[in-house]
C-alpha cells in the first residue's frame, strides 16, 4: 500500500537524484532562501547523502521500502531525522524514477523554524500555510465564524478583517482563500505598514521602464495575484492617496502600472485587514470612508484571545501537541498551576504571543514537562495583578466596567473645567492615577 504512514512530504526524483517535483513543508529548512526545491539535486540538500538513501536505493533494487528511518545532515548543517516510504517507477523493465512520502523532524535548537512549516500537501503550492481546520477553537463565537467562512468563500466579495495583533488575521485570510474555488491560484500577502510609501505604490501596481529613474517593467501584486487573493494587511498605514488608488482598482477591477496608461483587467479577491477599530480610523481620517465601505462587504471582527471562551487552554494543548509532533518529542502540557496563570493573563499579543511563549517554554523545558520556571517573568507578574491594564471585549463585564469608569471620569473632568486637582478630589482618587487614566483615554 502506498504511503501507509500518511506522510506529508512528497518527492519525485530521477535516476540521477534530480528532484523532478517536490511538495514539502518547509524548503527553507533545507536551504536558506528557497521557496521550492524542485529542480535541485538531492546532493544540494543533504551534505552526507550516499547511494543507500532510500530514494536512490529503490531504483537500484527495484523493491519498495515501506518504512524507513534515517538521520541526515542538511546543507545548513542541521541534523534531521526523516521517516517515510519510497517506491521505484518503472518504464520498459527499468527504474527511471522514484517517489518518496516522508516526514522530517525539527531539531530542538531550530524550533523557531517550525513557524515556516506548511502542513498541507497540495494546498501549500499557493503560498499558504493554513486551511480552515487550523482555526483551533471551542469558543462559540469563533465556531460560528468558522462556519461562516465556508459561505464567504463561495463568493468573490471583498473582505475586511479587524483584529488586534496576533488574533490570526492572516490565518483567516488564508483559510478563506483555501476554502474558495481560487485555492489553486496564488495567495499573495502584503503588509502595507512594512514598506516605505514610495516603493509600495510600485509594488502594488507595477512599474514601467522609464516611469522614474531605475524603474523597470514589473508587474504589481494586483497582477501577480490574478485569479487568486491579495491580502493587504495594515491597510490603514497607506496614505489616503494610495487608498484612493486601491479603491479605484477594486471598483473598476482594472489596474495600471505606474507610468502607463494601459489598463490591465484583473480578477483578484481583495482581503484587507487592520489592527485598529475601523470606526476610529475613519474618524481620525486615517482610513478613507468610501474605501472602507467598499472593502467591508464582508466584515469579520476577530476576538481577542482573552475573550475566547476556553481557548487559552485548548490552544496551549494544541501547540504542545503540534511542537511534539514536529520535533518528535514528548513534552507534557503545562502543569495546572501554569494553565491557571495563562487563563488569568490578558494576552495582549493574543494567539501569537501564546505560541511564542510556548515555543520559548519548549526551548527551556528540561525534560518532560513545562513548569512555571519555563514561563517568562512578565507573564507571572501581570498574572498576579489580575488583568489590570488589559482591555477586554466590548459587552463583557470588564469592558463595561472600564467604559463606565471612563465615562464618569471624563464627564467629571469636563464638569470641573479640565482641572486635575479638582477632578481628583471629587472622584476620591489620587492626581497621579487620574493623570494616568486620562493619558490612556486620550490615546
Amino acid at each position, binding site marked *: 500500500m*502506498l504511503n501507509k504512514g500518511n506522510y506529508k512530504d512528497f518527492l519525485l526524483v530521477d535516476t540521477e537524484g534530480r528532484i523532478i517535483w517536490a511538495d514539502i513543508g518547509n524548503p527553507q529548512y533545507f536551504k536558506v532562501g528557497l521557496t521550492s526545491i524542485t529542480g535541485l539535486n538531492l546532493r544540494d540538500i543533504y551534505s552526507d547523502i550516499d547511494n543507500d538513501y532510500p530514494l536512490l536505493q529503490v531504483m537500484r533494487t527495484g523493491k519498495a521500502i515501506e518504512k524507513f528511518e534515517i538521520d541526515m545532515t542538511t546543507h545548513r548543517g542541521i541534523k534531521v531525522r526523516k521517516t517515510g516510504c519510497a517506491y521505484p517507477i518503472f518504464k520498459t523493465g527499468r527504474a527511471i524514477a522514484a517517489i518518496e512520502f516522508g516526514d522530517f523532524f525539527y531539531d530542538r535548537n531550530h524550533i523557531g523554524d517550525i513557524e515556516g512549516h506548511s502542513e498541507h500537501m*497540495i494546498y501549500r503550492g499557493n503560498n499558504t500555510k493554513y486551511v480552515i481546520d487550523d482555526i483551533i477553537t471551542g469558543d462559540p463565537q469563533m465556531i460560528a465564524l468558522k462556519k461562516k467562512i465556508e459561505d464567504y468563500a463561495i463568493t468573490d466579495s471583498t473582505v475586511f478583517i479587524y483584529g488586534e495583533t496576533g488574533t490570526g488575521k492572516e490565518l483567516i485570510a488564508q483559510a478563506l482563500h483555501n476554502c474558495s*474555488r481560487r485555492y489553486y491560484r496564488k495567495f499573495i500577502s502584503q503588509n502595507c505598514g512594512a514598506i516605505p510609501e514610495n516603493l509600495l505604490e510600485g509594488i502594488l501596481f507595477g512599474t514601467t521602464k522609464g516611469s522614474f529613474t531605475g524603474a523597470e517593467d514589473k508587474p504589481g501584486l494586483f497582477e501577480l495575484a490574478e485569479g487568486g487573493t491579495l491580502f493587504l494587511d495594515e491597510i490603514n498605514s497607506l496614505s489616503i492617496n494610495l487608498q484612493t488608488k486601491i479603491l479605484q482598482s477594486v471598483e473598476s477591477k482594472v489596474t495600471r502600472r505606474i507610468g502607463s496608461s494601459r489598463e490591465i483587467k484583473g480578477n483578484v479577491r481583495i482581503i484587507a485587514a487592520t489592527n485598529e477599530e475601523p470606526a476610529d480610523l475613519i474618524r481620525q481620517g486615517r482610513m478613507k470612508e468610501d474605501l472602507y465601505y467598499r472593502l467591508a462587504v464582508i466584515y469579520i471582527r476577530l476576538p481577542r484571545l482573552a475573550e475566547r471562551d476556553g481557548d487559552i487552554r485548548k490552544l496551549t494543548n494544541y501547540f504542545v501537541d503540534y511542537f511534539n509532533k514536529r520535533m518528535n518529542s514528548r513534552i507534557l502540557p503545562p502543569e495546572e498551576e501554569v494553565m491557571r496563570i495563562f487563563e488569568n493573563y490578558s494576552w495582549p499579543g493574543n494567539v501569537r504571543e501564546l505560541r511564542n511563549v510556548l515555543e520559548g517554554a519548549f526551548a527551556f523545558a528540561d525534560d518532560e514537562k513545562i513548569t512555571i520556571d519555563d514561563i517568562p517573568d512578565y507573564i507571572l507578574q501581570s498574572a498576579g495583578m489580575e488583568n489590570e491594564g488589559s482591555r477586554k471585549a466590548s459587552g463583557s463585564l470588564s*469592558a463595561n466596567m472600564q467604559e*463606565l469608569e471612563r*465615562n464618569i471620569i*471624563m464627564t467629571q473632568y469636563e464638569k470641573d473645567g479640565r482641572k486635575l486637582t479638582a477632578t481628583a478630589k471629587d472622584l476620591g482618587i489620587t492626581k497621579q492615577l487620574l493623570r494616568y487614566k486620562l493619558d490612556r483615554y486620550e490615546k
Partner: protein
Amino acid sequence: MKSKADIQENFQDILLVDEEGKIEYFKIKAPDYFDLYPEDLIGKKIPQLYSNLDEETSTLMRAIKYGEEKLDFAQELYTMGGKVVTQRSDTFCVMDDSETGKVAGAVEFAYYDPGKGVLSRGMQDESSRSDAMEKVKLDDIIGQCHAILNVKKKAARIVDLQSPILITGHTGTGKEMLARAIHNSGERSKEPFIYLNCSAIPENILEAMLFGIKPGSFTDAVEKDGLFKMADRGTLFLDEIDSAPLSVQGKILKAIEDKRIRPIGGTEEIFLDVRIIASCSRTLAELMSSNTLRQDLYFRLAVLQFELPPLRDRGDDIELIADHYLNVYAEGSGRPVKTLAPEVRDFFSRYSWPGNVRELKNTIEGTCRGLRKDVINMSDIRVRFSQSCSGPVDGKTAAAEWEDYQASGMPLKQYLKETEEGSIKEAMRQTSTMAEAASILGISPQLLRHKLEKMQKSEK
C-alpha cells in the same frame, strides 16, 4: 545512460494512484475543472472523475491491473461537471517489487496546451458573470423620491448631448452609476466609457495619462495615447475632479472648450469628440466654499449639473433599495429571497447612512452571506453597526452614567466596585451554573470564580 524521454520536464499534471486506483497524490495545474477540493480528490478513483472513463479504459486503471505502460497517449476526457480536457499523457507503474511484478500503484504525467487544453461545455464562465454596473441604464436606477425622479427625468433629456456634465453628491450616492447610465442610455453606448479617479494620481503623471505622450518630449518618452484619445466618440468620466491639481483642471477646461488636445511633446493637435462627465464628492454648496475646483471650469461644467441626495434624505427609497439588493443577492446565490424584520426596517429608516447607497448595498450583501435563515433580525446586522447601536440604543449616555454616580454619593472606586458586584450578582441570579453566568458577563469562568471569592472575602 539516461534516455531523454524518460519523464518530460514540461508536464503540467502529476496524478498518482495506489494499487486500488485511488488518488494518493496529485499536482494539477487547473484543478477547478473538477470543481473539487484536494480532500475530495484524494481517495477518488479516476472513473469517478471522468464520465467517459471506466475501469477498463482508464490508463491509470490499466496500469494497475495489467501493468500496462502508455506513452504519449492523446485523449479527450469529459469531467463529471461536463468540461472537456484534451491532453497527452505518459503512464507508468509504481513498483512494489519489480522481480515479482507486483505494483504499488501508477503515476501519470499529463501535458496540454495551457489555455486551450481545458474547454468548458455548458458551464457558465465565472468572469462573464456580468458586472451590473457596466450595463446600467437610467431606468435601472432605483428610487421614487422626488429628487431621484427629477434627476432621472432631467438626465433622460440630455443623454445624447455633447456638453459636459457635473455630478455632485457625497460618497456612495451613485455618481459613477449615474454617469454610466447616461452613457449607456444614449448613442454613445457603443463607444468606450473611460473612468479615471483624479485624486489618486500625481500631477505630472495625470497630465500624461489624460493627454498622452509623443516621443521626444523628454528622455526615454514612449508614445502613448491619453485617456481623452481612448474615449474618442465615447465618454470620459473624471471622478473627484476637484482633487486634480488646478493646472491640470485648466488644461481639461481648454480641452473641453477647444474640443481638441495636444499630447505632451506633440506638435499637432488632435480633434476629438469626447463627452466629459465630471464628479465631486461634495455638495454644490461645499464646493463653492472651498477653492478646490477652478471657477471657470466649474461654470463650464455646471451647465448640466446633477446633485445626488444622501440616502437618509430619500425616505422610502431606503426600503426599496434594500429590497432590490435582497433580490439581487437571492438571484446570485440561488437561495430564497430574505426579508428584513420590521425592527430592521425601522432602524434602517433612522440610521444616518454616512456611506449612502454603497453602504446599504454592502450591508445587505454582507449580512446575507452566511446567514442560514430567511428573516434578517437586528442581531444579524448589529455587528456591522456596533458604533451607532452602542450609543443610546444599548445603554446609557455618559452624562446619565455620571448622574447615577453623583447620586450614589460614593467615591469612584467604591462605586465601581459595587456596580460590578451588582452585575455579577444579577448574572448569578439569572442563571443556574457558573459557566452560564460567566458567558453572560463575557468573562472566563475562572475569572468569575476569582471575583466571587474576592466578594465573599470582603463581605466577611
